[in-house]
């Protein structure tokens, strides 16, 4: 099995309320040195044969990410 990892992140200009909520909670843990938090998704695709990065990119573009608001990054996990 070969694993391809797709990371999906909201584009920087898109508001991330989830990340903001976490950032607002950090001072309550005594953490003051983190300026901002952004939350994304990590998606793991297990290929039955050789990892196909092109195919993974197509899947990410069509389904896993909404490229209107999100960007994605695809890589083979060693």
């Amino acid at each position: 099995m070969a694993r391809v990892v797709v990371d999906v992140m909201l584009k920087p200009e898109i508001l991330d309320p989830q990340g903001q909520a976490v950032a607002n909670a950090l001072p309550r843990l005594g953490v003051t040195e983190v300026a901002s938090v952004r939350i994304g998704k990590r998606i793991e695709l297990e290929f039955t044969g050789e990892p196909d990065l092109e195919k993974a990119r197509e899947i990410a573009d069509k389904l896993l990410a909404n490229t209107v608001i999100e960007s994605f990054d695809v890589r083979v996990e060693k």
Partner: protein
Amino acid sequence: MKIGVVTFPGSLDDGDARRAAGLAGAEAVQLWHADADLKGVDAVVLPGGFSYGDYLRCGAIARFSPVMEKIIDAANGGLPVLGICNGFQVLCEAHLLPGALLRNSHLHFRNRDQKLKVENTSTAWTSGYTEGQEIVIPVKNGEGCYQADEHTLDALEAEGRVVMRYLDGNPNGSQRDIAGIRNEAGNVVGLMPHPEHATEALTGPFGGGVDGLVMFTSVLASLGVKA
């Protein structure tokens, strides 16, 4: 005239949407997400209330259901399509409407009677209103925050494609108080509030009651049915 209402696994406002279609004088036709034909309907409503649990993003997986493939083709050919709440999310994911709907900026689910301003009446679904009319329609959503890039927002404004805007407070943080938009042709409309819940005086919101019914009578009028 037949108005088809799609039921996705998880839809919960499909019954109300069919009832609204009936109250407006149409024959309501139930469409199942796995149907590969539209049963000869003259218009389609994608109702609110979750599709496939919206596991990945709201509407992202529903957009690939067999019935949606037919609806995308038909909408591009001029079929009137209204997406309400989750239906709006499905229309954005299907690229029939621009932009995307994100989690409410305050992170809370919001449900209340919502005052709206009708901004555009040149659509199949809003022709029965007057421009600038203030109406009340219930809103209930967790992911109703409309987002698009500045260029898209400017284009929507310039082309009169913002159909309705929130008044007296924005319930979800959507950009420029946008509650609903239309496609270029005006046959496809996405709206976050729920017009199907404002179609009868007994159960409709205070101060509005039946304001939502006009969306359903509008589409019948656009199809040539006299009120």
